[in-house]
């Protein structure tokens, strides 16, 4: 299994699309590692500096419809090679969500009020999140507080995370 723990990058916007996560001009790369410098290069978000803000982060917390647009799995790969294996959002575009689990990564949906609470309470602070996969808990920690938040994930998705993706599972079962 991958690592699901570390510092949080808050992206305070809805509808962040996969062109923003990794622009099409980099889709000519045929290794995942080559995508590393370009993650979120075209993100339209005031004050955001992709290289500085992404550095040392392991979890993204964002709003609704993250990963909409192009089906490019280069988006999860660009996250993965930057050490980000978890995205927490109000909801995800279908293809992006499936791509995350197919790569053995977490795309966790929380209700709108929970996302709002995370932004209000933790954005701007040095915050870390750890996913407790056995107990379906998100453990959030900042310098002055720590708490556990429940999340739900389907059996299929959890299996893909544990088996590190869909190819191995499908090869065994189909």
């Amino acid at each position, binding site marked *: 299994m991958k690592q699901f723990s570390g510092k949080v990058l808050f992206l305070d916007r809805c509808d962040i699309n996969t062109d923003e996560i990794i622009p*099409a001009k980099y889709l*000519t790369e045929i290794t*995942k590692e080559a995508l590393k410098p370009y993650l979120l290069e075209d993100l339209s978000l005031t004050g955001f500096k992709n290289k500085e803000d992404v550095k040392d982060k392991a979890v993204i917390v964002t709003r609704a419809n993250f990963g909409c647009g192009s089906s490019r799995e280069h988006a999860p790969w660009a996250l993965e090679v930057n050490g980000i294996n978890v995205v927490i959002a109000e909801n995800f575009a279908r293809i992006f969500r499936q791509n995350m689990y197919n790569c053995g990564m977490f795309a966790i949906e929380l209700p709108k009020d929970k996302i709002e609470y995370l932004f209000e309470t933790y954005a701007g602070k040095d915050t870390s999140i750890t996913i407790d996969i056995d107990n379906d808990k998100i453990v959030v920690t900042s310098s002055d507080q720590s708490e556990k938040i429940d999340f739900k994930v389907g059996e299929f998705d959890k299996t893909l995370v544990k088996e590190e993706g869909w*190819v191995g599972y499908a*090869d065994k079962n*189909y």
Partner: protein
Amino acid sequence: MGKTIAEKIFDAHRVNMPFPDTHVLKLDRVFCHEITTPIAITDLMARGMDRVFDPTKIKAVIDHVTPAKDSKTAEQGKILRDWAKRHGIKDFFDIGRNGVCHAIFPEKGFVRPGYTVIMGDSHTCTHGAFGAFAAGVGTTDLEVGILKGVCAFHFPKTLKFVLRGTLKPGVYAKDLILFLIKELTVNGATNMVIEFTGPVIDAMSMESRMTLCNMAIEAGGTCGICYPDMTTVEYLWEFIKDEFKTKEDALKEYTKWVSDEDASYEKVYEYDVTNLEPMVTFGYKPDQVKTVKEMSGSKIDQVYIGSCTNGRIEDLRIAASILKDKKISDDVRAVVSPATPAIYSLALKEGLIEIFQNAGFCVTNPTCGACLGMSNGVLAAGEVCASTTNRNFNGRMGKGGTVHLMSPATAAASALEGKITNSQLYKA
């Protein structure tokens, strides 16, 4: 309780349900292009699993960057080409025979009502125009599709649009879908199938239906679907005439793939589209839509007519009818990219290419090109493009550029004026 077409297709293709709400479906078609497939191929090779489930059900094309623009794109083409040869994939469309995937695959008769189709491309939803369940997927799903001929889906709910009335002259499928995306928002159909039904759809060509279904993904939709009818049969007839005695027999068979009247929907929308105006996007999301009237006069630097949304013969005919005997504005440059070689040939035969050239358009070979800012018309920072494509995302056609999505008619009229213009000005 009746079933939707998506439910019927799921029922007919379900291999099993390994987990709750996890439907593993047998695939009738796995489509491949050179951007998302090579990494699937190299991964399969690295795993010692370089196999394909059925070379006759896999169709492949080089379309995103063609001819190759550099060593990297040449390598992507080479990986796909070598793989197709290695596995006896006969329907591989290399340079000279290649076109935009969602135009050339339907044109070759590869999609039939009731089929399941996946491709590593979000606009795979286009093929729902034939009454198929067609969904864009990532490279891993594609890889498993290639290897095993299956794909897993959560069960999609269905939204139904009942569209009545008649589209006014100068208003096309593109205007309709932009209006519907505005109504739905970019997140409004996430994880859902969108059915397009009603007299407006019944009167539409397959080309227009494909334009409509193509942009279902821009509202988050898994697939856009039109019910198969005689228009579908006529379009497919040259490919199916050996399977059926008459077109009526084909229609009878295909209308199995229509939703039952008492099927259950997430929501049903009814619109009379008679007063719909030509529409155009602003901003950086496809649900940011205004009427052309509201955006009229907005300056542009480039016009692009092409793509899997609007690069088909019907689109070229409409644009050419506006451009005939006219010149584009000195303040714009214009590019037209017929979506397939057959469309290009037909446009040549009908004199459309000459009209485009005389008007001052650059005519390119079939390719996805500028739509996603990869080649053939990338914008400079600060430039604006009037485009018949499907996404106006930030940086989509080039870093710092802006894209306004519109119909081929509006794009052609805008080319003449150098600013966003209602095509009806040229119809009087």
